[in-house]
C-alpha cells in the first residue's frame, strides 16, 4: 500500500468488519434511535441503543456515507457499548478525526456522529 493511502489501518479494520453495523436486536426497557443526515453530500447515520439501568447495553449503527463515517460510527459504538449512558454526551469528534486520520474536508460529515450521540442522550434524559 503506498504511503498516500487515504484510509489508515483503523479505518480499514472498522470498515471491513463493522461488528456494530445493524439494529439493536436484544430486548431492553428502552431502545433509543437517532437518525441524522447531512443534505450536502447525502450522508446519513442511524444509531440505535438498547439502554438498561443507565448502561448502553447494545448499540448499533447504520450509515450511508464514506468509509471514514462508517469507521467513526463503528469505533464509537464499540467504545460506548456496555458503558454508562452519560458517555453518549461526552464523546466528541476531535479524537476520532485524529485516530482515523480524517481529511479536514470531511469534518462536517464526522459531526454526524456527535449529533447522533447527543440526540440519543437527550432522548434518554427526557425519558428518565
Amino acid at each position, binding site marked *: 500500500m503506498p504511503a498516500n493511502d487515504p*484510509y489508515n489501518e483503523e479505518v*480499514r479494520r472498522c*470498515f471491513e468488519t*463493522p461488528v456494530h*453495523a*445493524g439494529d439493536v436486536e436484544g430486548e431492553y426497557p428502552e431502545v433509543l434511535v437517532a*437518525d441524522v443526515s447531512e443534505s450536502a*453530500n*447525502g*450522508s*446519513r*447515520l*442511524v444509531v440505535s441503543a438498547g439502554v438498561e439501568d443507565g448502561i448502553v447495553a447494545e448499540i448499533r449503527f*447504520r*450509515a*450511508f*456515507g*464514506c*468509509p471514514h463515517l*462508517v469507521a467513526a460510527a463503528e469505533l464509537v459504538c464499540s467504545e460506548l457499548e456496555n458503558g454508562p449512558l452519560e458517555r453518549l454526551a461526552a464523546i466528541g469528534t476531535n479524537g476520532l478525526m485524529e485516530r482515523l486520520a480524517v481529511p479536514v*474536508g470531511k469534518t462536517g460529515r464526522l459531526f454526524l456522529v456527535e449529533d447522533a450521540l447527543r440526540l440519543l442522550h437527550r432522548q434518554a434524559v427526557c425519558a428518565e
Partner: protein
Amino acid sequence: MNRDFVYLDYAATTPADPRVIDAMQSCMGAGGTFANPASVHIAGRKSAAIVADARQKVATLLGTEPGRLIWTSGATESNNLAIRGAAMARANRGKHLISMPTEHKAVADTFRALAREGFDVTWVRPDEYGVLDIDELAAAIREDTQLVSVMHVNNETGAIQDIRAIGDLCRARDVLFHTDAAQSAGKLELDLNDLPVDLLSLTGHKFYGPQGVGVLYIADRPHCNVLPIMFGGGQEKRIRPGTLPAHLIAGLGTAATLAFAEHDQDLRHVSALGNRMWAGIADIEGLQRNGPAEGGYPGILNVGIADIEGESLMLAMEPVCVASGSACNSTSGEPSYVLRALGRSDMEAQSAVRFSFGRMASEGDIDIAIERYRFAVDHCRSISPVS
C-alpha cells in the same frame, strides 16, 4: 503484470504496450536516438527520421497525411490548441461557439475560459444516454457560429456521437468541427480522408502509447487553421513550440501501428470483457446503466445504484481499480457532471462505477471484478440505513 491490483480503468490511462516500450527504449540513453530532431547534425537527423516515421504511422492510423499532424503533450493541450486556436483564428468572423455539457473538462473549461473573454458559447444538451440530437445542433448554429466541438466517445459513458453527421452539418453551415477523439483514436476506426472532421485531438496513453504526448490533426481546408497558444522555437509549423520528445513520439507511432493492425482483435476483446462484466452484474437489484446499452463503445461500462455510497463502494471493491462518479474521484468535489447532464440525480451519479477494459485485461480480471462489485454492493447495503 501487477498482481496487487486488478486494473479496469483503461479509460483513465492504459499501460504502454511492451512493443511501445521497446520503441521508446531505442530513443533513450546515450546509445539511443535521443538527439533533438531539430538539430541538423547526424544525431539530430536520426531523431528527425524517427519523428517522421512516427508521424507517418499516426497518419496511417487516422487515414490522413503526416503533414496534417501537430505533436502536443496530450489531448488536453490538443483540445486547448484546437478550440482556443480556432476561435482566435476566426474571431474576426464571429464569436459564437458550440459544445456540449458532457465534454471532457479540457474542452468544457477551454470554452468557459473563452466565454469569460467575450466569446458566446452555446451548450447543446444530450439525451438521457448522452447522445446529441443533430437537429438540436442544427438549431443552435447561427450566422456567427465559428466552431462546434463534440467529442467522439464519451470518457465516462462510452456514448458515441455521430461525428459524420455533425461534420456534414458543420460543413454545410461553414462552421469548423473539432472532435476530442481521446477515447476513440486507436480504438474505433477513424478515416479522416473520408470523415468531415476539421480538427481532432488524441492522446497516446489511451491506446497503449506513452503518457505525455498527443496529436492535433488539422484538416487541409480553407479557413481551417489555429493560432498558437504557446510561443517559442519554430517547431511544428510554428503552431506548437518546444523540443520534440523523440522517445514519446516513437512510442506513440508504434502504438498507432499496433492499434491499426490489431483494431479488430482489440475491439473483440473489450467487447467480450464488457459483455462478461455486464452479464455478471446486470441482475443486481437497483442497478442502472449509465449511457447507452447499445451502440456505445464496448470498452466502457458505467453502472450505478442510487442507494449505495460511492466512496465506500470503491473501498469495498479493492483491489479492483475502477473510476467512480463520486465526489471523491473528482477534483471539483462534485459528483460527475457528465452523469448529471444525462439527468441523473446527485445520488445516482455519486454511486456510479465506470469499468473500462483494454488489451491487457483478462476474463479472470473480469471475474474478480464481478465478485468484488457484488460483494461491495452487499457490504455497503448491509451497513446502510436505506435498504
